[in-house]
């Protein structure tokens, strides 16, 4: 089996190369795709490497928000003074993705396009009400993450940036799998002037928001507001490291911790 490798220098060329390939894949940081290929679980005909596309590795504070280019690596988000000042919880989240090697290769665009059910970034995008900017449109985070490894992206659509509003307070807490260090449960809590958004990753087939938790925290943004809420375990994942009951319980434990940390941080 031969593999065609392309490194286009424009977004238009990249999209065209992929559209023309028999079974092509975009390559960003490669932190999921390359191990999958090594395990012979993926065997694409073409790899379209996005690393030479100009202007996609950037971080910028705008009037009302924060823009992070799709090819920005986790380590750069984690270390960015701009991100730390605007949304410190986002910098902290990036600083705890995977291990140092992953953080120096993996990109925000690659992570959200892959939409691993245990990835960290999807929780941040959903809770922060971010907007995914692509080469052809803008997609609200609420409409972007559709299911396990499934997003609203077209096959040849390229994420160019993510636009985040600035919350009043936010925090991300996770329980890592002891083995893989992926989130068994991760909870991102973001408080805005007009309400609270809470997104949960790792626990279900896809990142999701909890309306019960959001309503309770909108009325009182403190851990004790959550005392009477419990999460239905029936839709949650069970595996060697955490059964569904434990995940349901840990969603509440971590949400309380995140609320406490968000209060303490502001």
């Amino acid at each position, binding site marked *: *089996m031969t593999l065609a490798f392309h490194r286009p220098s424009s977004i238009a060329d990249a999209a065209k190369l992929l559209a023309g390939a028999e079974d092509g894949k975009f390559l960003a940081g490669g932190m999921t795709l390359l191990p999958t290929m090594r*395990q012979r679980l993926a065997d694409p005909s073409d790899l379209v490497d996005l690393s030479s596309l100009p202007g996609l590795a950037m971080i910028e504070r705008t009037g009302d928000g924060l823009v992070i280019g799709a090819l920005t690596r986790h380590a750069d988000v984690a270390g960015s003074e701009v991100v730390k000042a605007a949304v410190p919880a986002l910098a902290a989240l990036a600083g705890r993705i995977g291990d140092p090697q992953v953080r120096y290769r993996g990109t925000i665009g690659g992570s959200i396009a892959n939409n691993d059910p245990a990835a960290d970034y999807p929780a941040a995008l959903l809770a922060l009400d971010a907007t995914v900017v692509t080469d052809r449109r803008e997609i609200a985070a609420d409409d972007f993450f559709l299911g396990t490894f499934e997003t609203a992206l077209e096959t040849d659509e390229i994420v160019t940036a993510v636009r985040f509003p600035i919350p009043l307070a936010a925090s991300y807490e996770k*329980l890592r*799998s*002891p*083995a*893989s260090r992926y989130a068994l449960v991760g909870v991102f809590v973001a408080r805005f002037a007009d309400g609270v958004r809470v997104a949960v990753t790792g626990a279900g087939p896809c990142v999701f928001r909890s309306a019960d938790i959001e309503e309770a925290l909108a009325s009182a943004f403190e851990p004790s507001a959550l005392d009477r809420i419990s999460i239905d375990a029936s839709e949650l994942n069970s*595996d*060697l*490291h*955490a*059964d569904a*009951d*434990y995940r349901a*319980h*840990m969603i509440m*434990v971590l949400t309380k911790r995140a609320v406490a940390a968000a209060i303490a941080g502001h």
Partner: protein
Amino acid sequence: MTAIGIGQAPKRKEDVRFLTGRGRYVSDIKLHNMAAAFFVRSPHAHAKIGAIDSSAALEAEGVVAVFTGADLEAAKVGGLPVGWGITGSDGEPMKEPFYPVLAVGKVRHVGDPVAVVVAETPEQAQAAADLVMVDYEPLTPVVSMLDALKPEAPLVHEDVPQNLCCDWAMGDEAAVEEARQKAAHIARIELVNNRLIGNPMEPRAAIAEYDRARDHYTLYTTSQFPHVVRFLMGGLVLNIPQHKLRVVAPDVGGGFGVKQFHYAEEAALTFIAGKLCRPVKWVSERSEGFVSDRQGRDHVTEAELMLDENGKFLGLWVSTLANMGGYLSTFGPNIPTNLYAPLLSGVYKLPAIFCNVKVVFTNTLPVDAYRGAGRPEATFVLERLVDVAAIETGIDKIEIRRRNMISKEEYPYQTPVVVEYDSGDPMACLDKAIEVADIAGFEARRTEAARRGKYRGLGLSTYVEACGLAPSRLAGQMGARGGLYESATVRVHPTSHVSVMIGTHNHGQGHETTFAQIVSEQLGVPFEDIDIVFGDTDRVQFGMGTYGSRSLVVGGAALSKAGDKVIVKGRKIAAHLLEASFEDIAFEKGEFKVAGTDRAKTFAEIAGAAYVPHDYPLETLEPGLEEQAYYDPINFTYPGGAHFCEVEIDPDSGEIELCAYTAVDDVGTIINPMIVEGQLHGGIVQGIGQALFEHGIYDEETGQLMSGSFMDYCMPRADNLPSITISPQVTACAHTPMGVKGCGECGTIGSPAAVINAVVDALKPLGITHVDMPATPNRLWAIIRNAQSTSIAAE
């Protein structure tokens, strides 16, 4: 250029090449015209093998040949041998079913090799392996040992009824029954010793080569004991005469037991190299290692400890099911029997012990020795039981141990389970550990943790181990089919540089440094002038290899004996040169002296003269300065110690933090304190891995390995660990030449019980008396929740 002797801590010689990336491992070796092999492995835990169609694979690009079990059977290749036979309590020898190199008729575990594809490149071999069509007829697998022993259970081997390899026992059942009658209290426990997967840093690899001109084979392999591989494979599997077979184990990246067996891949490659007359290489991938390396532990145990009204131990009864997996591996049946039951007395006076072990076949990977091998399992049973007894009798856990400990004056101490401890001072270890770990301050630490909402627990484990494997006479009585001596040759070159050929194998233990220190101390030769040669059957005389904390104890003793012989020879040469009688020559500080005079020859002068024998009395003195010694120990050695562990558990989440770990170990005389500390650190961390993280899990229905990669099999990592405090306590071994006892396995033996005892102590307020390993957050949370709901229901 100075002598660096016993007790000093020079940096490790071998680290220069390892840290600069210049180690030479099997996978670094490239031979001319070398082909690559890939093993086709069973995806089923239990299945009949029908037709195997290799035609498509043979037509694939680069493919040279495909071999199956039938090819080996036709060539009368033997089965993989077992090095240790055990006998049941009914006098019946263990069931020892044929273990084919490539499966014939049936596969018995996921990963069982059924065919080998040889191609020009590894990628071609792997791609073609997908084209080998094996017609499997799946059978119901036997996964759990409890199921395997049921009358209706499917049979892993048709000739082994009820999947029972051996019903084995040690000790005096009647005496234990008597103790039961007299007991004021009986503490009882049921526990599982979780299956472990060793995962040395370097995966296994092998290259086989056949020299047609000399009719000679060479096997390069990642082995802890190349001579034993040569003996077993040449003598029993492939029928290659020993002088026509060379086995080389070059730099090896960690073993932990995983590499101390003769594996199917070694025999298959050597066979194939002979058939094809070209070198063939195989390098295991990590994921392949999960389903082809031997695994460890896997016991299910019930045990009872009988005590009198004062908390004195009267007797111990243990009943264990031990998993062998699908086949008997090289030492498999010996580990849960002869390396387990004799350790059940621990550091205690335990007048009556009885241990029954049912050794069971299942459709899982074969189980064999893994660092500690039987002894961590025994320690875990005993030390968990002592803690249960302490809780139930209300006697403090330290006090109950003191009341039963063997005192220093009582050594040598004969246990009721074969072994006689030659030396030790467990009370001193415990006292020192109490001080170093600041046990007096623990209650304050517990109170402070409680203020933060955390349960803090203190765990203690004492232990003793039998290592320095092994006195051949005793091993023979226990069923060993070989001896367990060790050998060393000290070759003093004319320039007085020294090469030491030793039968042990260094794969991380620092032997090149430790052994050089021994020679430097003994002969006064500069540390830098000594090289340790190992791992090549053509360069080194027969030796038994490295495992069972034996290298320094047995190999070091052989080395010291060979050094003694060099000194004797040197004295003879000096006597001639100095015109004195042999009896008047003394060897001190690197010089041969005529007693009572200032006439002397340096070691270097004697070395030179040994090879320039111009006026030698040749009828009484041979030229040369090279001596060899074999050493067979008269007893096991018995390192021991006391470990304290402190943990904190968040009752809301089950998350656990290791807060402190203190180890006071008595490993006898210490040659290099830095290396000993490193060995203890590594061993303790492996034990912590078993207690908190690692678990080889098979699906009960299908026999598939669920924890088959590092995504699911959790190795301990630096951020899981506290800074470990090591504080040795030394009592010299009474019978080894330097008083050494061995330190390779201590940490692994003492730590699982210390950690779990701490976990149980933390949860004591909830009435919890046992937690199985690994104590993961999910498991702890479930236990805490159940205990809380039970106590609420009781109110």
